[in-house]
């Protein structure tokens, strides 16, 4: 079983919490990539969305604007010496194979697909979102998903949770701008022995 990172919620009271889904998902991906071990950089460990956001603000000057894969890639490389690998319009079967092959992934989804399901952790939100995907379960093909919104507040669901493959696929396909049958994701290194 791959290392399972600590859950990081985006609604942590920090100034950019509303737009920190990418930072939170990238923080969890960094924890996975390091398998929980402090890389010994000059920055605090374990990773937090607030720290990732701060680094993006310093380097890119984008304030609290939603972050991109590339900005998060740059931030976690500096903070935690982690190489995230953003890839765009990846066929679903390729995404699935990469996760089976020992990699975690930050996945771009549309929360409109999550709305009204048991996985919905913010019923007032239906926009573009980032979640962290840690692994696939062979018995039923489900994926272990860490939704940065799923912090249990107001009785909503808590992360991580097993999302059926068809559900994750639908949510990733629905992210605006993806080609038909394709997804956007940013992958960790292969951490499996």
């Amino acid at each position: 079983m791959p290392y399972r990172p600590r859950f990081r919620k985006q609604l942590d009271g920090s100034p950019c919490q509303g737009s920190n889904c990418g930072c939170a998902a990238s923080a969890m991906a960094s924890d996975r990539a390091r398998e929980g071990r402090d890389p010994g950089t000059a920055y605090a460990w374990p990773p937090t969305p607030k720290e990732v956001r701060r680094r993006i603000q310093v380097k890119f000057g984008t304030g609290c604007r939603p972050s991109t894969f590339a900005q998060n890639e740059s931030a976690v490389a500096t903070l935690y010496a982690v190489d995230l690998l953003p890839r765009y319009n990846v066929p679903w079967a390729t995404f699935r194979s990469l996760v089976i092959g020992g990699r975690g992934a930050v996945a771009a989804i549309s929360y409109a697909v999550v709305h009204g399901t048991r996985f919905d952790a913010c019923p007032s939100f239906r926009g573009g979102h980032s979640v962290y995907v840690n692994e696939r379960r062979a018995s039923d093909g489900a994926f272990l998903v860490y939704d940065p919104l799923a912090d249990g507040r107001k009785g909503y669901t808590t992360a991580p949770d097993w999302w059926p493959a068809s559900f994750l696929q639908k949510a990733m396909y629905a992210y605006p701008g993806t080609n038909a049958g394709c997804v956007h994701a940013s992958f960790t290194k292969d951490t499996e022995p």
Partner: protein
Amino acid sequence: MTKPPVKPPPTSASDEQHRRFAADVLDGDDYRQPPDDVPDTDVVDDSGEPDDDA
């Protein structure tokens, strides 16, 4: 650079096969270029009441 195989292995393939495929894909040039129209994620506002149909 190595071009990735056209098709990934089936889910029933060995972990090693998936691993080799993944390495080929990520070493290759495909999928690296973000599309021009990739939008940002959206800002969450959790302050309002949940929708009735949730």
